[in-house]
């Protein structure tokens, strides 16, 4: 249970959240809660076709409808050079379609009216004459010569977006040629969507008198959005004020800039009044950026004793109509080359082909560090295939192949330098806590009775904290992050950061870091994020990067404050600076513990009594460019029972043992793990966005895109090991996404384990009951 916020030395303690008092009162301020005088409402008209030429758009009836102030089409935007906008992946995306549409629900026109209802009414009156074109849904077909070229705007006349390789092809091939054991498995990671509870939306408010645009947007990366908007719109960056208010969940969905935002801004610029656009759930799922959709083939070369030697992976990545991947510039397939995971492979070779299809653009890093989820799932799945082939216990196979504690920092065959970890310790703790041996005994007994029980293990390694400026940028913007701390005379602190939380609890955890560094309580520290006019520049919150980057910035910024505070303390204590020691809550004189001053004393002095020659005031900022990424890891174990009659899978137990380095707030870490496991569970068992052959999205709402309820969700058990990051200022690694990254494989491995007596080696997600039933019946198992 939560700890009071007034205690000192709060780091590592379950401090109650500072953001909660407003949220439990219904006093949060989300973007749709912003209501400004004279505000108009925007509704986007979308294409029913997945691929069609637009012959004509007739907006006359809409313009004549009650309350309508403006209709925008691609042609209007083209005149302003705004019909297209850049994506984060360096592609470009239509804001409003000009000549053709490339996916169902693509933006075709925008209507602005006095009320939302009027805007929706008028949107129905816009007549668009479409000429349907052949639709490409299958990415493999897209790569064939027969497939129509979807992006005729591109110079390269091909549906292939990129081909990307990592690792050493020759060395890998050589090992495979000699290897006594080779396993190969096709693995699909379905198309999913982050689908935060609050959909995307914005209010654009252009003040003509001041030539200033205030843009309220539910954004994970407000600074990056401001820069992109400045580049797209031509408005000077200092005249754009982006405010990301309370964000109702993001999970990667709120990193990109969406066409609706650009339309709202253009409308506000044209009309000189605030314009609000709030998307519907349907629009959220069917048009904003999806995640995953990787078709992967993995091969492991191994010795007969289970020692893995080399890994070969080939992937076709469906990016939809526009490459909207939110990946750092140099990584078209994100950090997918972390795919060798927790295991000591001698060599690896990874290839990814990115492909255009007539589907919505993407893919974003959904609660994931740029494709690490696909990578972790793949290796954890294929390790089990190998174990099965060798008739080895999957835990044993993992223990035999882990990168050993003493190998850190460890350079992976695709070039990553893992900072720290103790994989064996983490797995052994998990095995012990779940009583693995006992479970295997029970499983044997149940199998003898014809029952299907499975135990699935996933010992994943994540790679987060993008990232070091020498390698990581988005559209050229280096991926550092920042903190700015101002200590007021009474010793109260306001700290602003370049990231933007969406429920992760930054207002509490960053206050804990700063309070710890400054010898204050959490109550003394106010954290502010999301306002580009006040917060220092940063790249935002996604890919578990806040703690590794902004968390580092916060600690180092506080230490900068402490450096100056030490000078003032020396002055107050009337000793030389070298004689001053900091014990975590106060400065005292070396050898004279009785004489001390607190940070509050120092703060007051900073404004009232600074030593000669020292600048008054107590504030600092810090832009932290991390030297390396951090590598959180964990050992997850799922236990499932299969209903032979229906094929339904019941998750009986699930234990997550995470190692995210130094823990800032264990209560929040557990909360993050619970949430991430729930999303991993949903992906494993429920979620996919299927398209029919005509490109119709078959799951564009929460009736068919399934999000788990309290009744569906298992009870989660958690535990931890702590291996601090050696390079992070406080040793923390980030945890928000580990459970989502690590858990799908545990679930699937458990189901496959249950069915392994039938010879089953793999089942693609989502594991719907009918899939399990088909396998059971195919093997003559019935109730």
């Amino acid at each position, binding site marked *: 249970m939560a700890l009071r916020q007034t205690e000192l030395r709060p780091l590592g303690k379950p401090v109650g959240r500072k953001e909660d008092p407003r949220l439990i009162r219904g006093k949060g301020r989300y973007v749709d809660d912003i209501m400004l005088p004279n505000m108009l409402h925007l509704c986007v008209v979308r294409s029913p076709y997945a691929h069609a030429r637009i012959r004509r758009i007739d907006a006359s009836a809409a313009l004549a409808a009650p309350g309508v102030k403006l209709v925008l089409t691609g042609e209007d935007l083209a005149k302003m050079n705004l019909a297209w906008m850049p994506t984060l992946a360096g592609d470009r995306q239509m804001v409003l379609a000009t000549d053709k549409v490339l996916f169902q629900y693509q933006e075709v026109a925008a209507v602005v009216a006095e009320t939302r*209802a009027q805007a*929706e009414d008028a949107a*129905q009156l816009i007549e668009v004459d479409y000429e349907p074109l052949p639709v490409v849904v299958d990415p493999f077909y897209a790569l064939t010569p027969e497939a129509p070229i979807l992006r005729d705007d591109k110079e390269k006349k091909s549906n292939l977006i990129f081909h990307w390789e990592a690792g050493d092809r020759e060395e890998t091939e050589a090992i495979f040629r000699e290897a006594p054991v080779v396993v190969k498995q096709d693995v699909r990671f379905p198309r999913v969507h982050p689908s935060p509870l609050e959909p995307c939306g914005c209010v654009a408010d252009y003040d003509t008198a001041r030539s200033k645009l205030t843009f309220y947007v539910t954004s994970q990366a407000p600074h990056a959005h401001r820069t992109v908007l400045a580049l797209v719109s031509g408005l000077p960056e200092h005249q754009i004020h982006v405010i990301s208010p309370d964000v109702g969940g993001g999970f990667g969905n709120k990193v990109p800039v969406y066409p609706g935002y650009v339309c709202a801004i253009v409308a506000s610029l044209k009309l000189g009044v605030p314009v609000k656009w709030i998307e519907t759930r349907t629009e959220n799922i069917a048009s904003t950026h999806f995640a995953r959709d990787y078709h992967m083939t993995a091969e492991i070369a191994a010795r007969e004793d289970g020692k893995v030697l080399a890994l070969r992976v080939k992937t076709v990545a469906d990016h939809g109509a526009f490459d909207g991947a939110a990946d750092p510039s140099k990584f078209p397939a994100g950090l997918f080359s972390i795919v060798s995971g927790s295991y000591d492979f001698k060599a690896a070779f990874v290839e990814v082909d990115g492909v255009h299809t007539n589907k919505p653009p993407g893919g974003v890093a959904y609660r994931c560090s740029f494709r690490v989820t696909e990578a972790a799932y793949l290796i954890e799945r294929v390790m089990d295939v190998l174990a099965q082939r060798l008739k080895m216990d999957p835990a044993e196979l993992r223990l035999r192949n882990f990168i050993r504690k003493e190998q850190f920092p460890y350079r992976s065959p695709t070039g990553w330098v893992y900072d720290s970890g103790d994989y064996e310790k983490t797995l052994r703790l998990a095995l012990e806590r779940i009583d693995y041996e006992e479970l295997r005994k029970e499983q044997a007994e149940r199998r003898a009775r014809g029952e299907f029980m499975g135990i699935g293990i996933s010992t994943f390694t994540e790679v987060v904290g993008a990232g070091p400026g020498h390698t990581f940028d988005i559209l050229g913007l280096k991926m550092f992050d920042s903190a700015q701390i101002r200590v007021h005379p009474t010793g109260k602190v306001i700290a602003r950061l370049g990231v933007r939380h969406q429920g992760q609890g930054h207002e509490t955890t960053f206050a804990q870091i700063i309070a710890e560094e400054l010898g204050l309580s959490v109550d003394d520290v106010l954290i502010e994020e999301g306002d580009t006019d006040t917060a220092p520049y940063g790249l935002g919150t996604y890919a578990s990067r806040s703690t590794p980057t902004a968390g580092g910035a916060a600690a180092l910024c506080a230490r900068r404050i402490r450096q100056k505070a030490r000078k003032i303390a020396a002055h107050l204590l009337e000793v030389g600076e070298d004689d001053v020691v900091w014990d975590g809550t106060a400065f005292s004189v070396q050898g004279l513990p009785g004489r001390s001053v607190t940070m509050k004393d120092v703060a007051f002095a900073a404004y009232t009594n600074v030593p000669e020659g020292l600048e008054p005031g107590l504030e600092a900022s810090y832009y932290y460019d991390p030297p390396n990424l951090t590598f959180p890891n964990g050992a997850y174990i799922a236990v499932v029972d299969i209903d032979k009659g229906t094929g339904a899978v019941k998750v009986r137990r699930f234990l997550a043992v995470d190692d995210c380095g130094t823990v800032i707030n264990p209560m929040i870490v557990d909360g993050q793990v619970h949430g991430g496991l729930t999303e991993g569970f949903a992906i494993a068992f*429920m979620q996919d966005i299927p398209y029919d052959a005509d490109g119709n999205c078959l799951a564009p709402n929460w009736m068919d895109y399934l999000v788990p*309820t309290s*009744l569906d969700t298992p009870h989660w058990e958690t535990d931890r090991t702590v291996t601090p990051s050696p390079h992070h200022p406080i040793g923390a690694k980030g945890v928000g996404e580990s459970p989502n990254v690590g858990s799908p494989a545990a679930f699937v491995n458990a189901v496959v384990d249950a069915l392994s007596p039938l010879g089953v080696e793999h089942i693609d997600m989502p594991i*719907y009951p*009918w899939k399990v*039933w088909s396998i059971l019946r195919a093997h003559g198992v*019935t109730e």
Partner: protein
Amino acid sequence: MFPNAFRYEAPASLDEAIRLMTEHAYDAKVLAGGQSLLPMMKLRIAAPAVLIDLGGIGELKGWRETEEGLRIGALTRHADLERAAALYGRYPLLSRTARWIADPLVRNRGTIGGSLAHADPGSDWGTAMIALHAEVEAAGPEGSRRIPIDDFFVDTFVTSLQEGELVTAVHVPAPSGPVAARYMKLERKAGDFAIAGLAVHIVTDGDGRVAEAGIGICACGPVPLRAAKAEAALVGRPLTSDTIAEASRLVPEDAEPADDLRGSSDYKRDLLRVFALRALREIAEELEGRASIA
């Protein structure tokens, strides 16, 4: 998301409602609980020009026992039937079905009459009413009539209600002896429409033989269906493992499931068989237990 504009009518009596329905015909939709209609209106795939809200018609609410059985007013909410402890003994299928409908919040608004008139093939109430051999009471300009449930569902979203007619109640016959029932349903997630579902209602006579059998099939055809062959195989026989096995095998024969995202038709047929097996076994146990207590 806003529905299209519509004219709102809130008749205070049944007669007024019927008059309005007759007057507006195709242009009108009736609003009962609104838990299916309003979402479709928000998505603008339903856009009635006139919405006739029955909420103010008191005579459509609540249930009462009659000589022949139970009359459930059309506006009786799912939650009312879920919690109607007084009905658990004689009409156990009602609460057992109600708790499977959507989620608790929807059950606080949705009504049995609205659900039946909506005629979704995945209607849990439709399935249960088939099992209960219920009759739908409808009122229209020509007066009131009772429609056997098997004649009520015509096609997906289509009932045998005439223009200007609305569902006023549903009549459930009283069981003639000891009764037990089960509602079995597999969902993709809690609150979802069924992948397949089965309502089983069994009444036995003094000798432990099946006196009445009702089996409704959910989401396996254009409308909720009756497992007539299985019912026939049960009536007059004791619930032995043989009769149960035979009836379970027969249930899928009356289903017409389609292949879709929820599963193949073979899968759904087999689910029905499994549900029948489980439901009948549980019912047999329950009734036997009751017999031995008595």
